[in-house]
């Protein structure tokens, strides 16, 4: 069927025809409505180009003028006008979907809706959903994501705050410590009133006050070889803010076995390091640090001191990595180690390569049979005398 719109013949196709083409692939799908309509519900893969921004944004959304390009709007009028406009711009194979998303939904075809997103959530996350890199789809991913934070202290506090504010639906917290006055210079998720409470509980209270969408799972204890697989298996991403080497190596080895990405940071004094380890896509922690340093090269923050805001800087960088991994957007720090030096306000990026000889993820790393999955080496012995003496998280 063809319609005369602004004296140009355009092709119109019914929703079921559009659905067939979309499922067949190689279609550029353009949503010609306004952002608030798009947020409510849109077709999967539909790129938002509001009518008023067509001339400016179409080249980005649909760079190939010869590609099959299908436009839709609410009921089919705006997309027909936009289709005529695109033909005028030289697009060769444009169609407008008749009846728009209303007809599409009427026929029972699927949409990406703000389903699960209440009016309150749409309001709360509106600054996210306005971003093309997040959108409703991305926000729903965040709401469905499960992230485990190892440590609810210096790094864990700011990471948890921003992940909770971002609407990460499940946040697990592992910590066996209680809130101490000396924590409050940097552990901003706790407060003076909650001194003496378990850190996991204190953090949960704060998060629940910040965002009722977030379910907090308290793991009030410490990770060891006997429980680590059970604790991390249900999470999508683990954030490592542990303060001792045995735990860092244990987490690395377990996360490689279960193929869980780990966002790992550490801080000391005015210095911070961060990297993202995605098993088998990039290096693991052992590729970077095959052996832990001796005690004199590995002081703790309690012995050495740490600038409080360093925890915020590195913790929010961790949150940024987590959010990008959940969204599948951007370029996470895989194979890159970012160093931050706060006195000089300088960042340095170093390359980290997969080590073919890595005993955990290298070419010769042994396949671990199911029966051995829960068995780990003795990390305390591995790190003994090497600065890895097991400190409590309160150290």
């Amino acid at each position, binding site marked *: 069927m063809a319609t005369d719109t602004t004296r140009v013949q355009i092709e119109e196709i019914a929703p079921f025809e559009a659905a067939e083409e979309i499922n067949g692939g190689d279609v550029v799908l353009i949503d010609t409505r306004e952002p608030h309509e798009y947020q409510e519900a849109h077709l999967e893969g539909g790129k938002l180009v509001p009518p008023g921004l067509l001339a400016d944004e179409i080249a980005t959304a649909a760079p190939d003028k010869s590609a099959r390009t299908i436009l839709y709007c609410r009921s089919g009028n705006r997309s027909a006008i936009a289709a005529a406009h695109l033909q005028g711009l030289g697009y060769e194979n444009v169609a407008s979907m008749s009846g728009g998303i209303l007809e599409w939904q009427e026929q029972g075809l699927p949409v990406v809706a703000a389903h699960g997103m209440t009016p309150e959530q749409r309001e709360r996350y509106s600054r996210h959903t306005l971003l093309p890199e997040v959108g409703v789809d991305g926000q729903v991913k965040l709401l469905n994501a499960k992230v485990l934070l190892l440590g609810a202290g210096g*790094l864990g506090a700011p990471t948890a705050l921003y992940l909770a504010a971002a609407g990460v639906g499940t946040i697990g917290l592992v910590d066996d410590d209680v809130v101490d006055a000396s924590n409050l210079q940097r552990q901003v998720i706790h407060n003076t009133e909650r001194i003496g409470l378990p850190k996991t509980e204190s953090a949960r209270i704060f998060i629940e006050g910040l965002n009722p969408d977030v379910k907090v799972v308290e793991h009030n204890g410490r990770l060891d070889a006997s429980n680590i697989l059970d604790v991390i298996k249900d999470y999508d991403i683990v954030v490592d803010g*542990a303060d001792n*080497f045995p735990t860092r190596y244990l987490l690395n080895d377990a996360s490689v076995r279960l193929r869980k990405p780990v966002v790992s940071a*550490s801080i000391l004094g005015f*210095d911070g390091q961060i990297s993202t380890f995605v098993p088998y896509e990039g290096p693991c922690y052992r590729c970077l640090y095959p052996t832990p340093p001796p005690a004199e090269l590995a002081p703790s923050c309690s012995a*050495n001191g740490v600038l409080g805001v360093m925890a915020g800087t590195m913790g929010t960088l961790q949150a940024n990595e987590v959010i990008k991994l959940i969204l599948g957007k951007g370029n996470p720090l895989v194979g890159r180690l970012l160093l931050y030096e706060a006195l000089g306000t300088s960042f340095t990026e*170093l390359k*980290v390569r997969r080590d073919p000889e890595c005993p955990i993820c290298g070419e010769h790393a042994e396949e671990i049979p199911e029966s051995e999955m829960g068995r780990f080496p003795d990390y305390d012995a591995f790190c003994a005398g090497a600065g890895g003496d097991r400190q409590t998280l309160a150290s």
Partner: protein
Amino acid sequence: MATVRIPPVLRPKTGGQPEVEAGGADVGEVLRSLTGEFPDTEAQLFGEDGELNRYVNVYLNDEDVRVLQGLETAVKDGDTVVILPAMAGGAA
């Protein structure tokens, strides 16, 4: 001359300096020139066999010298040598 970046844990051994200028044609010579000037850094960087300690990562600019030519990696004027031990500070 190359610039050697000193990690916080080694700064007490370099008089607190975060960066030290050191000469040498390759990474080994640059580090030897550092340990010559600040002898207390030697035991942290090198083992008894004269090799770099395994727990110390050394980068020439942004690349790990392990994937280059190790201590024999050539150093140009203005290059940066980064000494990097693992850190574990975080939760506490």
